[in-house]
């Protein structure tokens, strides 16, 4: 169970946000009331919230930051001329 997905919220939310999101999730009827209640319970408990914060979010920022995406300096002209060397004889 991913309580963040059920409540459609991200990890940096307050307790008030969590409670508000329950109402929204109930209205959306995407998940059962039981699942929504369990998701709320999981996130209102600081220990299990911290555990879910660890499990539910992949952290790729350190890897992206380490990558240099500077394009090569010399990029050829975009246009190329058509070659006739493969043309069939008429």
């Amino acid at each position, binding site marked *: 169970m991913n309580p963040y997905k059920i409540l459609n919220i*991200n990890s940096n939310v307050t307790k008030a946000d969590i409670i508000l999101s329950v109402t929204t999730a109930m209205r959306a009827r995407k998940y059962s009331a039981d699942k929504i209640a369990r998701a709320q319970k999981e996130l209102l408990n*600081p*220990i299990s919230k*911290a*555990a879910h914060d660890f499990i539910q979010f992949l952290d790729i920022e*350190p890897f992206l930051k380490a990558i240099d*995406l500077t*394009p090569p300096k010399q*990029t050829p002209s975009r*246009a190329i001329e058509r070659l006739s060397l493969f043309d069939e004889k008429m």
Partner: protein
Amino acid sequence: MKKSVSKSGAMLAKAEKFMKRGNYLFAQKEFAKVYKNNKDSVIAAKIEHCRQEAAKLKAKDLVKRARKYLKKNKKLAACRCFEEAYAITGEKWLAERIGELTEAAAGNDVESAARQHEAKGDYSKAAKLYEQSYNLNSETGRSLLKQRQAACLVKSEQYEQAIECYDLILEGMNAPTLESAYNYGFALSHQGRHFRCLKIWGLIVSGEKAFLKQKETVARLLEADIYKLLLLSDAHLQENVVGMPLKGEDAKTPDDKAKSLHNYPHDLAAAYEASCYLQSDFGFKGLDQLKTYCQWRLIESLWVEEQYETIADLIFNPNVSNRSAALLETWGPTILANLARLSYKCAQTSGRQLTELALYWFTALYHPTTWRLFSNPDFNNDEFEKKTEVRLKLISMADAIWSHAGRNHAGNGSQSSDEAKSFWDIEKQLIADIDSLVNGRKKMVHLVCTPRFAIHFGVADQVLELIRSANDSQGVRYFKNREHYLESGSYYSAVGKSLYYLKAQAYKKALDNLPENSQNEFEKYGILKVRYTYGLYCLETGAEPPGRYFDSGPALFAIAPHYETELVKKAEEANELDQMTLYEEALNGIYTQALKEKSEPLVQIQKVLSLVMSRRALEMFNKDMMNNKTLSITLKKALKLNPQNEFARGLLEETKADLEILEMEKALNRFKMHKACKIAVESDYPKVTEAFFEYMEYGLKGIHESSHDTSQKLLILNETYDWCAWVDDKHPILDEIEILIEEFGGEVPQ
């Protein structure tokens, strides 16, 4: 008049004859001549029949001619023949064929017009005419018309339409000509589809310098496009159309992020594939970063879409270059948490990647970089305790997965799942110990890992050093006892694999995986434990004779005395003969080894060996598998091992008495009375004397019925009296003998 009638009859006969032979034309003529003089309706009908049949034959002939023309590709002449035939028969198929031929003829005209325009360089017009000709032509060779149309479209710079044409050609599974392949790629390149262009040009095998140079140019354009795409995508991720920040943690909701990533995985996957292609086919250098970036972005989007298995295939698949080990080598602990998360998610959603979960989970949870992630603003002063609780919560969440996996695998004989669970349990304890040993020392945090992780990533020796450093001469400075110390180290040593197998109760595998020689104390301990446990396994299952595996016993007991206690308990509980025999063999092996090693005397083992030996001997004796003599020897041996063995002692006493009785009975039966009396006199056991007198009493009872005469009877009675008096001169049997002597008129001995 008569002559006229006969002439008419002859003509009629002639006509009938022609008709019969199928010569309808002549038959019709003859019938017409007859009808001229005789207007008979029957003849009229025959004339009509012959006319119709003749027309049919003509039509048939025309179709035949038309087909001949078609074979010679004379479509116009053929068409005329079909038209004539149709005029006769009016058959539908002929009309259809005429239509087709008319169109083809027209198409040929259009095609030649198209060629003329192409030759003149009016490619746009030529393309239209080729298309017209293609539509008119329903025969083979249409694909070539399409390829000509596409070529003209390229030459007239109508690239999009040209691409559509080439797509159609390829859809029809028609192999493009060299010219078409080149033109197709050229059009694709002009439309910015460089990757597809290069793939199409890959079909052309050519060493032409101009072409190779052009390919290189397109490859460079593709490289630039990938950079552009990634930079644009990155910008797009950071700010969506309504200006809402979406990147990473800033995305308002997971749904928002998922929406922003719609189709993104496809682009990223294509970019990744293109990067790989440029690297492999064009030898472009410096694309590793690009590839890695694509991969990470792809993984991110797949994560949002919960496609964990796809990510696992990318990361854990050994056939993929960026597999987890390589990633760990590159990224170190930064990636560890992600590998742990991924394996957790895979295990949770599909029950797969359990091995990876066991490999990464604990190491990730105990790593200081992860420890920092457990922080929460709500954890005020007692942060350490709370973070420890988070770690325990995560461990229990993963434990739940194992329980679930265990239930799912229960009964299906999934050994690997059971093994993985055993490993999980061991590692849970081991990593907690190593964490305590490191105790937050920064230089050593990388050593807080599970044994398999340590071996996999080459830090096992460092962990062993760490364990040694926490040891005093008895191995108890940190560890509970020496066994705890050696056990912890052995998992990180070369015997670790065997110990895992042992834990999973795969005893044979454990034995087979032992190293030939031990390099250190941990390996020595591991070997002892595996050999000893395998011996126990043999003892209980009878897999093979266990004796030789118990030579490890004394050394192991010296480290871990509980093994000795456990064995003693089991040996004491053995009550079946086979079981006792095996235990005796095992205990004897241990005892002999201890003597060889001159180690501390194994008092418990010695005592239980004595007990099992005497019990086994009795059991064999009771089952007539052992005689008194062997029993006595065995019991003496048991008593030598343990003089306090009361069981053996009591048994031996009984046995000795029995042996004397046996010997005495033997002497009595042979009338060696002196010997018999001597045994009875010298015996320490009353049982023997009693047996002697019982024998004598039996003899007295039969004296009346014996066939001896009175003097002989008196002689026997007197001798019996002497023997009995020698054994016991106060025994009541003497009175009985006296009465009998008197009865027979003898003189009572004094």
